[in-house]
């Protein structure tokens, strides 16, 4: 399913919807929640059905659509023997044009006196309300009534917005009355059709050719928007409405990586990329204000990240907005399970929002109940994607919703329960990683030096060798200076790791081992170490020694040596010296990582 929608969203054309609909129906269906839909319309809707089916599937519904006899809406609703009444559908969509529902308002509006306009509006609403009440007495079918679109070309031209009693004003009043009165009937909802049309533009929402040719006015541009809006209603009615948005931090709530760029270096503010992230925070805050809980799952040093939340002058989402926080180096799926427990909601109430495709892939594999939407690579598009997600939408908004964030914060509990994620290996396999390790040389010198100077987090010793020293190490035949490139199925991460070793007789000393934070948590460091072990053994060394020099930022690498067969020999202040016996240690290249060639 994920694949079908990823392809669809890259294309988005009417053909892509057709192909997606065909794929969903292959083999008799895909096992979604069955949903029977009756479409009652004043125009031909058949070309629209594939699009509706696909958008319903996006929200988990396997739709079966039935089209009621053309332009027979009121009769179908009130006749106990009508196919719509007898069909026992889950939902009926009432889709009418103003031309069909209330012809005088559409075709001879300027001939009408204002009291006639009032009367027509009242009569239309009363007739539909009567029919809907009758229908709801006869069936349990939920009804979604569309409002009417404003005209693309107003009758009074440029005066339309300036005078009282315009057609635009009349349609707005009609829509307001419809919304108020139909929603008062249990089991009836109102869909703001005009707003859907406005999203693609009124002039783009009707296709005249299809109207004249086949009485099918919905344009190819409008169909996906409308289908999505309807599907969000289905989701709000019968789906699992999500309660909590769990956010990553680096390159998600701000631009850059706090552990590398520092508070002053991250992008968050009023210009350029900083404005992009600030406005994304506004979008998140708006969701929060209507009752969506917020949480954080970020791989970071807690103190670094928390300082931004608390102290950065442009931060909108302060710590008290978040009902739960997991800022550490543990696998995010484990943290998601913990967040759900802490908030006492299901894992299937969570949405995971992370810029890293690897983290998203991992989350989908380990926690399929969590909704992990695909994100655009351009952060400028995050806000729109979040606004259009639809999974937080509900049919009503209560005062409890508006206070929910605080309620959860008050009762936040700290029972850290470790959820187990069995599919780590599967995740690594799925990444199709390729690691290439080569001696550093002139072509890679600048990048290696840059990494030596910039890398803070995954850096065992944080030795900032200068260019001259590095050249000396490169020229020294007893030394190995290695550069590691990492690629995976999502693309090439480039040169992201450096190791420096020095050989003397039986001993190899690990001077430097560092890796860009881009690739932390994917075990490529094991490949790098395995390469160093092989290099050392080839030279006849039997022992490798390494220092761990802790800094304010290199917590991620604190367990690296003990987890790879090193034992502590001595301590000097906060630094420690570790060793491993190369004759016995088993340090092999991970079998899920392909060895790259130069």
């Amino acid at each position, binding site marked *: 399913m994920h694949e079908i929608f990823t392809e669809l969203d890259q294309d988005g054309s009417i053909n892509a919807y057709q192909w997606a609909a065909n794929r969903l129906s292959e083999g008799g269906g895909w096992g979604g929640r069955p949903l029977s839909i009756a479409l009652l319309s004043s125009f031909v809707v058949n*070309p629209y059905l594939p699009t509706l089916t696909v958008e319903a599937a996006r929200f988990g519904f396997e739709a079966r659509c039935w089209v009621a006899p053309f332009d027979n809406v009121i009769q179908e609703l009130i006749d106990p023997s009508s196919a719509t009444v007898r069909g026992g559908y889950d939902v009926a969509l009432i889709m009418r044009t103003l031309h069909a529902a209330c012809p005088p308002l559409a075709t001879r509006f300027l001939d009408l006196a204002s009291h006639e306009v009032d009367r027509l509006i009242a009569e239309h609403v009363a007739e539909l309300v009567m029919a809907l009440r009758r229908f709801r007495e006869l069936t349990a079918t939920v009804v979604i009534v569309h409002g009417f679109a404003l005209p693309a070309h107003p009758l009074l031209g440029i005066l339309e917005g300036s005078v009282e009693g315009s057609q635009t004003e009349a349609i707005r009043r009609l829509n307001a009355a419809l919304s108020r009165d139909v929603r008062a009937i249990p089991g009836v909802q109102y869909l703001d059709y005009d707003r859907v049309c406005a999203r693609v533009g009124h002039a783009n929402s009707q296709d005249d050719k299809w109207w004249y040719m086949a009485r099918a006015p919905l344009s190819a541009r409008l169909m996906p928007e409308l289908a999505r809006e309807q599907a969000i209603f289905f989701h709000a009615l019968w789906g699992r409405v999500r309660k909590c948005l769990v956010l990553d931090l680096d390159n998600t709530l701000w631009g850059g990586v706090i552990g590398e760029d520092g508070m002053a270096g991250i992008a968050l503010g009023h210009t350029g990329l900083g404005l992009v992230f600030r406005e994304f925070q506004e979008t998140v805050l708006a969701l929060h204000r209507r009752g969506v809980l917020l949480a954080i799952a970020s791989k970071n040093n807690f103190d670094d990240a928390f300082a931004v939340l608390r102290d950065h002058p442009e931060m909108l989402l302060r710590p008290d907005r978040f009902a739960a926080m997991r800022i550490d180096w543990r696998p995010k799926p484990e943290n998601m399970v913990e967040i759900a427990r802490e908030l006492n909601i299901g894992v299937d109430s969570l949405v995971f929002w992370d810029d890293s495709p690897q983290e998203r892939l991992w989350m989908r594999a380990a926690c399929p109940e969590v909704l992990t939407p695909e994100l655009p690579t351009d952060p400028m598009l995050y806000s729109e994607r979040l606004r259009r997600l639809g999974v937080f939408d509900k049919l009503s908004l209560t005062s409890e919703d508006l206070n929910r964030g605080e309620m959860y914060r008050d009762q936040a509990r700290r029972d850290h329960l470790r959820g187990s994620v069995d599919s780590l290996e599967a995740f690594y396999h799925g990444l199709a990683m390729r690691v290439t390790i080569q001696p550093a040389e002139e072509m890679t010198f600048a990048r290696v030096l840059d990494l030596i100077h910039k890398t803070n987090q995954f850096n065992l010793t944080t030795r900032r060798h200068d260019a001259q020293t590095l050249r000396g190490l490169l020229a020294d035949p007893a030394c190995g200076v290695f550069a590691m490139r990492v690629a995976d199925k999502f693309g090439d991460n480039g040169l992201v790791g450096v190791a420096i070793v020095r050989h003397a007789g039986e001993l190899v000393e690990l001077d430097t081992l560092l890796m860009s934070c881009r690739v932390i948590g994917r075990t490529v460091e094991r490949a790098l170490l395995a390469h160093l072990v092989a290099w050392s053994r080839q030279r006849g060394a039997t022992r490798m020694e390494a220092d761990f020099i802790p800094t304010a930022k290199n917590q991620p690498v604190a367990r690296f040596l003990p987890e790879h067969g090193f034992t502590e020999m001595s301590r000097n202040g906060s630094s420690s010296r570790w060793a491993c016996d190369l004759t016995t240690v088993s340090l092999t290249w991970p079998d899920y990582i392909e060895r790259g060639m130069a």
Partner: protein
Amino acid sequence: MSHAPHDARMFKVLSGVLGKSVEEVARLAERQEPHGESFWDSLQHINIILGLEAEFGIRFELLEAVDLKTVPLIRAKLAVLVR
């Protein structure tokens, strides 16, 4: 089978709308006379024309859209409209 320049993309659209394989569509198309019978119904026709417009980034005029009821006619029109 004909190898007109736009056949592959045209058949892909037809295949999607009609729910038949590209090969089957191509087979049916081969037997079709320019002014013969459609092998799709009127509702499928709308989706075929919509699909062709999206695939080739073109707009058919109303009368063209009504008339393009066979593969040979569509093929001839695409040869004119698509560079």
